[in-house]
């Protein structure tokens, strides 16, 4: 299936929009090809919040750092009696604003963008990364787009989408996830190997 860069850009923008905030009735109608979006609005807003906003069972973290970054705490000098046997001190994952967040922020800036402060969220949010790829395609910078997919989006988006598909709470967004998967597959964005290859990690010394 051939898509021209600006067409690709459009699709990235759409998905970026869907993950940025819950869709309004107009958009719901367009996507679902129906006219009763108004009735669905609240239901989808609650689904959106439970998936991407509210901490809890159903939350699917929409951040690259959460999936990719790891942290090692060097406790060679720690003598705390509180360290339990079997305490895992290396490769801790699942936190926000890791090195990936700083790296994508840098990539945006190098390409002339920054996160609008009115977007009250982090730079490695899925909506930012998708929009950024779209922006690059829109400007005909296919190489840069592919490089960003390779270095960032591609490392985690499949993990994110798989999680999303699994969520019971996910109805509207399950469909969105599936569509995004089938769109991104030919883009080569779903290989997700970089994660195993060891994403970014850093070592924090526990000693002073």
């Amino acid at each position, binding site marked *: 299936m051939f898509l021209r860069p600006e067409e690709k850009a459009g*699709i990235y*923008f759409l998905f970026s929009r869907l993950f940025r905030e819950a869709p309004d009735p107009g958009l719901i109608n*367009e996507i679902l090809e129906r006219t009763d979006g108004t009735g669905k609005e609240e239901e989808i807003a*609650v689904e959106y919040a439970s998936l991407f906003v509210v*901490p809890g069972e159903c939350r699917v973290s929409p951040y690259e750092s959460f999936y990719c970054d790891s942290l090692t*705490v060097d406790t060679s000098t720690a003598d705390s009696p509180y360290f339990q046997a079997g305490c895992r001190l290396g490769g801790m994952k699942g936190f926000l604003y890791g090195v990936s967040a700083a790296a994508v922020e840098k990539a945006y*800036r190098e390409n002339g963008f920054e996160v609008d402060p009115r977007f009250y969220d982090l730079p490695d949010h899925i*909506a930012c990364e998708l929009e950024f790829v779209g922006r690059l395609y829109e400007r005909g910078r296919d190489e840069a787009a592919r490089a960003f997919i390779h270095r960032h989006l591609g490392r985690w988006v499949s993990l994110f989408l798989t999680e999303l598909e699994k969520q019971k709470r996910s109805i509207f967004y399950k469909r969105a996830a*599936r569509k995004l998967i089938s769109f991104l597959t030919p883009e080569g964005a779903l290989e997700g190997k970089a994660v195993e290859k060891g994403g970014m990690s850093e070592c924090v010394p526990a000693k002073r």
Partner: protein
Amino acid sequence: MKLDRREFLKLAGLTSAAALGGRVLRPVTASAKEALIRGPYDGGEWVASCCNMCGGQTGILCQVVDGRLVRIKPNDHNPNGFSNVSGDFFDNAAKEGAVICPKGNAGIMALYDPDRLKTPLRRTNPEKGMGVDPRWKAISWEEAYGEIASRLKSLREANEAHKLLWFSEDHSFTHPQGDFCKLYGTPNYNMHSNLCDVGRKASFKILMGDERPLIDALNSKYMLIFGWNPLSATKWAHLPRIITRGIERGARLVIVDPHLSYTASKAQEWVPIRPGTDGALALAMAHVILRDGLQDQAFVDAWVTGFDSFREYVKDKTPKWAQGITTIPAERIERLAREFAATKPAIVDVWSGAHHTNGVYAGWAIAALAAITGNVEKPGTLTLPNAKGSKHIEVEPDGTAKKTLKQIRLDGGKDKWPYFHKSGVYTEIINRILDGKGPYQPKMAVIVFQNLLMSVVGTKNTEEALKKLDFIVVVDTMMSETAQFADIAIPGTTYLERYDLNTHWVTWPVVGLRQPVVKQLFGQPAEYEFVCELGRRLGLKEENGNEVFWQGRMSGARIEDKTRWYEEWLSKELKEGEPKVTLEELKALPGATWVSKKGTKYNKHEDPIPAEKAADAITENNILYSKKKDGTKDKQIGMLKPDGTAVRGFFTPSGKLELHAAKHESKVDAKGRPLKPLPVYEPREWQPSSGYPLFLINWKEASQTHSRTQNNAYLAELKSTDGLRINAETAARLGISDGDLVRIESPYGKVKMKAELTEGIHPEVVGTQHGWGHWAMGRTAKGRGAHTGFLAKTVACPLSGQSLNKEICVNVFKA
């Protein structure tokens, strides 16, 4: 699902429609371009601030690289992480370096916790309750502010401002919140302390007129500590250092506690005691000391009042008597008493061991040991705090606010509780909402960083009470159990994203600055900005028309930017307070900490009152008071010694340490019972019975702060849960083996936990670390350990309003 080109093109086409709204990226601005040029990883900036992983406010240094916080280390310029006496700090801090505790080290994970709240949320499910899905919907800040402000406005316009309850943390931005309540018109501003140490505060207030004496552990030779785990339940990171240093210099540490705490494990002696009986032990020790004439008679003659009636009272409080109550052998009590009286200087202290119905009197009896042995205000003893810091600028409410401020507090306030603390009485508030027997029914609550369901005893009652309120706003960084009951939940900031001034609890004046180390992660306002915005929307004013939430306190100008507005607020508090510097000047001080050069002073009760001051004072019954502007009596400033010289003395009615409190004779407690003029021992109310034969206690450790840090990934690595500690013999009797799942039952509820067998707990007692058992909050916290609040009764100490966190009896079964 197969998708074809046509469908994709349709989707792509949507983007040209206005349907998508705005974008999240924008062209780079000039200032952001500069940010690209940043140093290497180990470069970045170091920002000095103060920790707030607990209420301790230890100094920290934070390394920020590319806008990310990557490291927290101790701030050597702030004494709070080093020592509470100035000589030690001035001489050794730079050489040895300060410390932070494990919680402080884990602060990065609080900031970057994946389960943080990030946008205002509105519940769409009107039903509330534990386990009920609020069906949250993300809403805009405008919508959140709009709704909260309009709710507050209608309440105020209906002259019902007092029906707003406000709950806050006790160490962060309390001034703007308290002022908001005052200007709005509610007397019901409450904060955490009544869950913490208002019992201890009352005990020491009775004895010495000061609520929070500090231990000079470094210079001590004997430390006798009841119900406190200072080496691990660190509130001040300097405690482990000064206590262990004290031991290295030859001090003996004795811990009286039903549980072999971490501190007890480092002590020379652990004295396991039956819960709630510490007062009896202290009285029996006093008996031995006075029987054998081991008191410091010269000090007693000069500085103690009520000695004779106290001596009379303890005459029959023999070690044998105490043995039957405390389970501590009489000979051991004899020995401890003699050792304590003979070794000087000595410290005697108690903290949350006082969370029971006899707690205030017990704390007073314990403090009395310091008085009779002269272990007060000398190096190595209990010292009076000199925590002069920033100054709270009082606001004057307008007429509308005054009307409702006159209403009695929902908890009855100081008319009901003889040692009422301004933090309120949470348990009383909950009970009154439940039974509707308060002076009125509150309608709305704003709850800032208080997880009432996890922290107030009697969880089921808290749940029912919250359900009865019309509208609840919760501000928190996490979706706490309490936030689940909110109508609107507001994402809060961590201490790494906001300002505060911290008056440190060391023995001489020190003020540390907390400042934003990184920008607020989700663009959310800091809590003072949130309160300020509400104040603006409500148009709150002082009586003279001054718009407190607009006016810059330094410039007097109207300030739009709320951060700048607060910066001026802080500058004013610093300028008018002890430091006399501006915020900018404080930032520029080493470690952003102002440290008074005056240093630690002892024997402050002997400080002469300057002649002019004494001449200007009002003197009544040998007590000197300063004058208010209108010439009436203000605060106690000193006393006249028999020789007529004016000295500071102690701020008690007699100016001396009081073993007999005459003023108690005319007072009653919250239950209407007359107060006892002496530090009496009375059995605590809830005693074991055949159905519930075991005492249940709980404690704190360095691995977590209260119930607030359990979602922290670092801390979860350190210690991932806690079980029920039970004496091995008791367990054998109950057929319980180590690691068994057990059911713990009280008349109020039941929970399950894993049994941890130990010799390190009194055989009549089971216990666990407080704070586990979250059923919400986040993925790391949820489902670890058990919450014992379900087993407790919603009740407070009738003197102080201290919640009785440790007065629970249970039965334990193999599950």
